[in-house]
């Protein structure tokens, strides 16, 4: 016998329900056809519900304006790459929501994943489609050393920053170490020659280079923190609904857009994962998106649980600035790989209609295909898809897409 005693609920003060009833009487306006539950959902998705950006305790330069300005320079600096041809902005284009409209990002060569847009990225506890880094600054170090992206190495970057940005660097981070005697190219993640050169360096030299490398990441992260989501038509509509007034001008939703919104927050179950003001739960799900033929096997988050815990640049590592207690994402992470087979981070849907293709490897080229996927709910090639098919009418399909378009921010 299980005694399931329902927990004592915090007694909702009568006055708030009275107030709601009162408002409803006051205003028999266009928002009255949404139920209380629907209104609650609409409000929860609105940009007004976005909390203040939390500072990253692991990055002493989080929220630092001078660091953000230096980070902006680095973000656009092609010098920060092996051949001087690739910057972060090569793939993360400011005028394109900081992505590149390609199925898979292309630096020195084509990668296996789609370039992610960056608005609101600092709110996310995990970075990358599989969350293999636990902070923005640790994330930034990965493409810099990836052979298909910036294709450089940390020792070369430390020397480059000293030569090209020495003054700006030292104004923020203090004196640069002696680097001239070090090999031109050395890294534990480089090719065989670079790894061998790294092995020949003393521990102290490696630590000095790692510190400069981490600071490059911290400046880049401070810049990326400034990339916040933009207000969309949906937000103006939601504000009116929440305030119980009639939406005006471009905030007026067509019947189709309202239907799409209703489906999204209701029968279509999209809120299970795309919730909150960024339309993401920041978690990882297997949604049965098929792999791209010809690419290396991709198990999603299941493959990287050890990598993020062993990363020397993670929150608990020697280059993070946080007290261990503050590393809550890492300390309490779900570590059961079976739950994460082919699971990917729920992407934000803000601005989504404006930036095809979709999914972690650009599998789908149009929103119509995305909606078909949610309707057909194919089985996953490995692991179990969490999607239970929802049958959409032709109009329902159009309605969902019409709603997604209302999430486009200002150009």
């Amino acid at each position, binding site marked *: 016998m299980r005694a399931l005693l329902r927990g004592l609920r915090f007694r909702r003060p009568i006055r708030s329900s009275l107030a709601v009833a009162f408002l409803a009487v006051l205003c028999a306006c266009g928002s009255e056809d949404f139920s209380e539950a629907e209104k609650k959902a609409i409000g929860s998705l609105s940009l007004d519900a976005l909390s203040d950006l939390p500072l990253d305790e692991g990055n002493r330069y989080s929220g630092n304006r001078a660091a953000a300005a230096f980070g902006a320079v680095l973000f656009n600096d092609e010098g920060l790459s092996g051949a001087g041809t690739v910057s972060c902005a090569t793939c993360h284009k400011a005028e394109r929501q900081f992505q590149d409209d390609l199925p898979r990002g292309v630096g020195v060569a084509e990668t296996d994943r789609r370039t992610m847009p960056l608005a609101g990225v600092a709110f996310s506890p995990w970075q990358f489609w599989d969350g293999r880094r636990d902070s923005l600054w640790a994330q930034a170090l990965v493409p810099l050393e990836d052979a298909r992206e910036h294709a450089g190495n940390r020792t070369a970057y430390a020397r480059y920053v000293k030569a090209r940005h020495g003054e700006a660097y030292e104004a923020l981070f203090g004196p640069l170490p002696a680097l001239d005697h070090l090999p031109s190219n050395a890294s534990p993640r480089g090719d065989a020659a670079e790894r061998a050169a790294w092995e020949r360096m003393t521990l102290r030299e490696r630590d000095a280079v790692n510190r400069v490398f981490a600071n490059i990441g911290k400046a880049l992260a401070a810049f990326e923190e400034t990339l916040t989501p933009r207000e969309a038509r949906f937000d103006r509509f939601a504000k009116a609904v929440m305030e119980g007034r009639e939406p005006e001008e471009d905030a007026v939703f067509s019947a189709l857009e309202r239907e799409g919104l209703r489906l999204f927050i209701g029968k279509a179950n999209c809120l299970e994962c795309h919730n909150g003001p960024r339309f993401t739960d920041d978690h990882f799900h297997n949604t049965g998106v098929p792999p791209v033929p010809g690419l290396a096997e991709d198990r999603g988050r299941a493959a990287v649980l050890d990598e993020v815990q062993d990363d020397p640049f993670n929150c608990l590592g020697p280059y993070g600035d946080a007290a261990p207690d503050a590393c809550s994402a890492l300390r309490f*992470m779900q570590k059961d790989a079976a739950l994460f087979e082919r699971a990917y981070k729920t992407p934000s849907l803000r601005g989504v209609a404006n930036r095809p293709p979709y999914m972690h490897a650009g599998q789908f080229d149009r929103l119509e295909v995305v909606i078909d996927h949610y309707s057909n709910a194919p089985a996953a090639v490995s692991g179990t898809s969490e999607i239970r098919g929802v049958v959409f009418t032709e109009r329902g399909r159009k309605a969902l897409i019409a709603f997604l378009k209302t999430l486009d921010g200002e150009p």
Partner: protein
Amino acid sequence: MTTQKRSGGKGLVLAVIGLLVAALAVYAGYRLFAPPPATVDMTYNTVSSDGLYQVMFETDTLPIPLNETHSWVLIVTTPEGEPVNDAEIGIDGGMPAHGHGLPTEPKVTEGLGEGRYQVEGMRFNMGGHWEIRVGINAAQGTDEATFNLDL
């Protein structure tokens, strides 16, 4: 004279009543629209399935936040209200309707004394019905308590 006085008194009484009504209306209006006090602790309270423990939790974040890692304080007592210290405690849970667990692995990180335990790493990643199971192992025996939350 007296009549006049009296009617003046009546007017005063009426005026006072009028003022009272107005003040009440203003107060009611204020109560109607004032946000709930920010410091109320939400307390959940249940008995473990074999009746060994009374289990409560508190959170000072109201309402329980979505997509934010936060902490709870669990309070474990005997049914008679004696605090249970030094218990081994495990936390698990999920959404029965969706067949998935918690997005994190919450843990008791500190015994605070008087049957109170700090639980860190609580996180809920969607609205709806969640079940939190608390496994307790102490001198009284092993038992499990379940909380049902609607977020």
